[in-house]
């Protein structure tokens, strides 16, 4: 592990196609991974919709494809569990590798991170 490797955590609270927050999150995460850093993404509120399988975006950044790629590249993705329940999303409704989570786990991620970014609020 490089001595300069840092951990970036992105707290994403915006729906994927209501603005540019999800796209910005994907681009920042991709850049951080490219630079050799660790990346966590914690989606909350409408941010969890960016990880719902079955959507197909054309003509705009595809959140499902983008986040799938980030997961495949090693990004850790956690989704607010109660936010999923509120929206009727189940484990099988979200991308493989995106884990239902909790506030307790969010705070652990935050404590373990060097940088925390809030997007979408």
């Amino acid at each position, binding site marked *: 592990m490089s001595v300069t490797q840092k951990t970036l955590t992105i*707290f994403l*609270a915006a729906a994927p196609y209501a603005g540019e927050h999800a796209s910005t999150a994907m681009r920042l995460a991709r850049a951080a991974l490219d630079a050799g850093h660790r990346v966590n993404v914690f989606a*909350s*509120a*409408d941010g969890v919709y960016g990880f719902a399988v079955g959507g197909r975006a054309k003509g705009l950044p595809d959140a499902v494809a983008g986040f799938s790629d980030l997961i495949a590249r090693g990004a850790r993705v956690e989704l607010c569990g109660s936010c999923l329940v509120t929206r009727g999303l189940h484990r099988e409704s979200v991308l493989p590798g995106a884990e239902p989570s909790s*506030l*307790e786990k*969010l*705070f652990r991620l*935050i*404590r373990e*991170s060097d940088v*925390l970014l*809030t997007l979408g*609020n």
Partner: protein
Amino acid sequence: MDTFCVMFRKAPYGTIQAAEGLRHLIAAAGTMVATAVLLDDGVYLARRGQEPGASGWVSLSGALERALVDCRADPSCHLQVYVHEGSLRDRRLDPTTLVPGVELVDDDRVATVIAEARRLLIF
């Protein structure tokens, strides 16, 4: 001990942000030193006497007040809520209408609280 700050910038009920911020703040207060900064329309969160009735919302000012009372009774809980007095003034809100236990702060103190927090979530 880690200091975790939640910044409230949106009024309650119009969007989910204030409720989400409060949920995160209350959860954080049980595990680390938690501070809240209410500024811009976020100051409305601390206005006492909110009665959302049958709307489906809980009273967010009531929840904030309960959290402050509960935290004072629990030695392991660390919660401090700061309200930006400039935002209050801009909205002609009377500080005596706020829930008890919040602290009015000026621009410099807001900057210090944010700078001293190890982590910041914005709602």
